[in-house]
């Protein structure tokens, strides 16, 4: 009798458990579920900002602790023709644009940026996947640029528009027949997919001599006739990486646009010519291949409205944890 009751209870608990967890996945798929799950992010942002000030610095490390290899992740070799043209010319034609809600829009070459006040910092890069690397970043503090561009009072966010296409609207990464709905599931998947697809030459970029991703500049046959925002030749709209931070993080002294990694010009795999460093947050906030900084009042009109490529795909906008 007791034994049967036990069996019944165990079976019941198993059933309830299975239903509960299947229900979890279904719940997460609904709008209410998404809103509920976002409460944790709001609480994290609120509490972490209570514990720090705009000027609080991330930990800096001694030079001896610099990682021998700084793991490149996400896009490691942008397929975009405009970017390849810039890279082929060692970014001599590169101009960083600062515009949007500013009084004086800027257009600055790498030489212009290197002439501005610089900051160097040895910090730990924490990927959302869980790994960490330490590197030395040198670049121009974002605050120096914003000071020169003079913010309009409505400006609330700095948006970083990047050169790298991750997918095409309505299509996959590999393109062509338009049948693929492949989407990267997490930042590491982008790197893996690029490595796998590097053999196919129809992924937006000009074919390279070698399929293997390279860490130096200037690979690929340049096709400099297209402007940066041009749609691909077959009319597909590229979805490029973008990120955003608020002025709280923009004002931090460690928030820089880095042009050097470990004392050398930033390699393409790590985001050349310019990479955002916002040290109190995770790796996907550290946008690579930054072409343009746009000051906006709201993030609603950009991408799918969540403030970044990965944010549009479910990741938190506040990546302090």
């Amino acid at each position, binding site marked *: 009798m007791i034994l049967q009751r036990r069996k019944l209870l165990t079976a019941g608990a198993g059933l309830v458990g299975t239903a509960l967890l299947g229900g979890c996945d279904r719940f997460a798929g609904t709008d209410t579920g998404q809103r509920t799950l976002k409460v944790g992010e709001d609480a994290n942002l609120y509490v972490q900002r209570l514990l720090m000030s705009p000027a*609080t610095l991330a930990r800096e490390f001694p030079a001896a602790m610099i990682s021998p290899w700084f793991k490149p992740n996400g896009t490691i070799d942008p397929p975009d023709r405009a970017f390849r043209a810039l890279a082929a010319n060692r970014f001599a034609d590169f101009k960083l644009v600062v515009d949007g809600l500013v009084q004086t829009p800027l257009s600055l070459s790498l030489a212009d940026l290197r002439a501005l006040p610089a900051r160097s910092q040895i910090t730990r890069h924490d990927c959302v996947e869980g790994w960490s690397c330490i590197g030395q970043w040198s670049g121009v503090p974002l605050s120096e640029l914003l000071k020169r561009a003079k913010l309009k009072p409505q400006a609330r966010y700095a948006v970083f528009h990047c050169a790298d296409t991750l997918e095409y609207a309505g299509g996959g990464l590999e393109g062509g027949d338009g049948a693929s709905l492949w989407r990267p599931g997490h930042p590491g998947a982008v790197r893996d997919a690029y490595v796998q697809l590097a053999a196919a030459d129809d992924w937006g970029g000009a074919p390279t001599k070698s399929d293997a991703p390279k860490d130096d500049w200037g690979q690929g046959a340049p096709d400099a006739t297209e402007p940066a925002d041009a749609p691909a030749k077959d009319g597909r709209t590229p979805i490029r990486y973008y990120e955003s931070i608020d002025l709280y993080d923009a004002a931090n002294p460690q928030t820089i646009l880095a042009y050097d990694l470990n004392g050398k010009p930033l390699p393409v795999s790590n985001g050349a010519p310019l990479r955002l460093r916002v040290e109190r947050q995770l790796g996907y906030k550290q946008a690579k291949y930054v072409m343009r900084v746009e000051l906006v009042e709201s993030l609603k009109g950009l991408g799918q409205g969540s403030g970044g490529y990965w944010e549009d795909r479910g990741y938190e906008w506040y990546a302090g944890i």
Partner: protein
Amino acid sequence: MAASPALEAPETVDRQGRRWFYRHPLVIRLAHWINAAVLLVLLMSGLQIFNAHPALYWGAVSTFDNPALAITSEQGPGGANRGVVTVGAHSFDTTGILGLSRDSGAEVERAFPSWATLPSDQDLATGRRWHFLFAWLLVINGAVYLAYGLFSGQLRRRLIPDGDQIRDFGGSVKEHLRLRFPEGTEAKRYNVIQKLTYLVLVLGLLPAMVLAGLAMSPGMDAAWPWLTDLFGGRQSARSVHFIAAGLIVLFVVVHVLLVIVSGLVNNMRGMITGWFSLGRDRETAR
């Protein structure tokens, strides 16, 4: 026997002569069940997060060539894929569960299998959202439990071993190993091993879990660098978080087994309604 407040807790005798006492107050019952559900979600979403980079390291950074632990899949000597867990210099074939498992019939390369993760598919973003929301629930529930436990005196009464229990520690261990559990009045208090285990869990393991989780946060590392130092660096904190999760799972397995063998129905009734039966022993005749 030294006076223990727990042993003097009021009891009633029903018409069949069974002795009952009110073992678990409402706040503790609620906290217990909320904790159980929250820990399950945290464990499964945590394994989802771990799957995004299934390797552990010690220190500040990842030494990719030399992880302390890694769960991978590789081609075996026969050409078939197999799941492998590597701990230091030792490798174990874990095909079917870790590294390589089946999901709806298809062979998939993932560290923890789909039945163990939330969401069941590989989805780091949603796993993180579950994890952080339920981490807050764990902290709030834990704070309510501890505040209630401290101010009501329940924590001291229930979990601090009484003098006589400490003196008879060896005897208690022997009884426990033989799966013989206290009866009658003595069953009104937890035995000494139980008390110490629960103490380690609620004051040690669970707070360490929360702190190690926070120590991985780049925002917390900026605000409270001492916390990350406490664990010896961010990657160490991640490893401690993982090991502590394993210890909590071990606790739950042993806890559930002991709940079953020491009287499933009475224990469950106690934690659901609060009322625990001391049986119909000779003491009732007094």
